[in-house]
């Protein structure tokens, strides 16, 4: 079964006199249950609009397709769909009046979690997120990283089967990022399907089995992370010269202080390079395409293999 199915969904923002903006354009996604799935795209790609439609904060355009969470339609079976979904928004949102416990107590009540169950779940969840000693503190007094963890606790308090994290590691330090990754892996191991959006391609490489890249409201690439990397691998020899103002081999292009040569046969082309530049060759390396490069090629319409 798919944890999330989006079929031909569209969302148009209308704010006259400006022309209508189609933030999500006939987009389809099928995310299998049990995965950690990456949703990538530059700013303004339509990720947040898509997430808002999934969580029920925005209505898709009428007469467009459907969005289903574990086969529950988010428009027609809203209540059941919302129970299956936990969402960690991009912005840290903290109610200044309430303590950490109160935030979770009332929020889980709004999901219909019974009082006794709430009293039991809150300390357990705070313990697992390293916030046990902050239970009675005002939420606004927490540090940035702790607030982020409180947001994750809010999303998990009703035990959803699908968790969506909208850029959870934006602006957090390295150790917290590692902690969030660890938490995502743990949750996934316990059976929660996790979708997260990110700008950090390293995260997609580290965490995700599969990913979808969207731009201008459309899916521009989807599949296994490793396969996408291989597909876009450019087979390039990067090299530096002692003296760069010389005649160059055919096909060589300059990139900053370095030069690049696309190759077909590594051994043969390397030999050609050594023969041509001889002692002028300072260093060289064979570079695999990083996801960063793939991402830029896909979203900026750069060269594709």
């Amino acid at each position, binding site marked *: 079964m798919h944890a999330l199915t989006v079929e031909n969904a569209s969302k148009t923002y209308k704010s006259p006199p400006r022309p209508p903006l189609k933030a999500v354009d006939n987009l389809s996604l099928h995310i299998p249950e049990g995965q950690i799935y990456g949703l990538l795209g530059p700013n303004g790609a339509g990720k947040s609009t898509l997430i*808002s439609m999934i*969580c*029920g*904060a*925005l*209505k898709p355009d009428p007469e467009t397709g459907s969005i289903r969470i574990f086969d529950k339609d988010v428009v027609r079976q*809203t*209540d059941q769909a*919302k*129970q299956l*979904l936990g*969402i960690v*928004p991009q*912005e840290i*949102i*903290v*109610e*200044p*009046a*309430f303590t950490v416990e*109160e935030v979770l107590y*009332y*929020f*889980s*009540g*709004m*999901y*219909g*979690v*019974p*009082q006794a169950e709430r009293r039991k779940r809150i300390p357990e969840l705070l313990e697992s997120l390293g916030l046990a000693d902050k239970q009675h503190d005002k939420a606004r007094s927490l540090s940035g990283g702790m607030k982020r963890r409180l947001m994750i606790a809010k999303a998990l308090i009703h035990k959803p089967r699908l968790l969506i994290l909208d850029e959870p590691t934006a602006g957090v330090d390295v150790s917290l990022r590692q902690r969030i990754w660890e938490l995502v892996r743990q949750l996934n191991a316990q059976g929660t399907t996790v979708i997260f959006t990110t700008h950090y391609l390293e995260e997609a490489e580290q965490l995700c089995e599969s990913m979808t890249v969207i731009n201008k409201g459309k899916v521009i690439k989807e599949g296994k992370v490793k396969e996408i990397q291989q597909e876009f691998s450019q087979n390039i020899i990067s090299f530096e010269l002692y003296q760069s103002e010389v005649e160059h081999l055919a096909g060589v292009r300059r990139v900053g202080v370095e030069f690049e040569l696309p190759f077909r046969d590594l051994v043969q082309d390397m030999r050609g390079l050594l023969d041509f530049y001889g002692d002028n060759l300072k260093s060289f390396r064979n570079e695999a395409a990083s996801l960063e490069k793939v991402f830029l090629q896909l979203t900026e319409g750069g060269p594709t293999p």
Partner: protein
Amino acid sequence: MTFMWALYAREVKRFRKLMLDTVFSPIVSMVLYLTVFGVVVSAKSIGDISFLAFIYTGLLAMIMVNSGFSNPGFALIIAKNLGSILDLQVTPLRPWQIGIAYSLAALTRGLFTLSVALALTVWFIPGMTIAHPLSLLAIVLITGLQYGMLGVTFGIWAKGFEALTFGTTFVMQPMIFLAGVFYPVGQLPAPWNLISQFNPIHHTVNLFRYSFVGYADTAPLISWAAVLGCSTLFFGLMQWMTLRKLAESLQ
């Protein structure tokens, strides 16, 4: 029902945490009005009642109207500014449940503030009794809910604090002050006496005063019809606004 009660309990907790602002601030204003207008001009009487008793009952109505309107109005605008409005959108609460929970919290704040105000200030009016207890109970409950519903409508409609200031300063305050809190509207020259009849808060003030001390500017039956009519209208407006807006982005 857990869903709705949790939201109701959260909103009650919110005003209880900010009691200096939500409960005691209107009471301080009330005491100042009583001192300035009531004690200084205490020699005058209106009908069979003292001017002090006249404005006292009007001020109690004002507290109830203001508490009802402000509680959801401010809570929703703050939620929009913080982004915590998302809590209402992602949880399986129906728009009508959200409206009712906020209105009930508004009524609770009104009842609480009114009780504290009465307990602290009733000594201003020697020999104060309640002329029509059942009528008083009904108008108190209806006012809290009615202006709570208007506050929900306004809080969902308003884009930011400026709109809220506009609502309180340019709509609610003039309506309250022109509702006959400090003077009997029947003594106003034409056409102002007639125009006052179209101010819904006048009928609330009139029924508060009638229920407490038995004095009414406008026939109580007319005021009941106006109050019930307005309640229905505000309920309809709230339903329309929550349904129309809560499923769309509020930020």
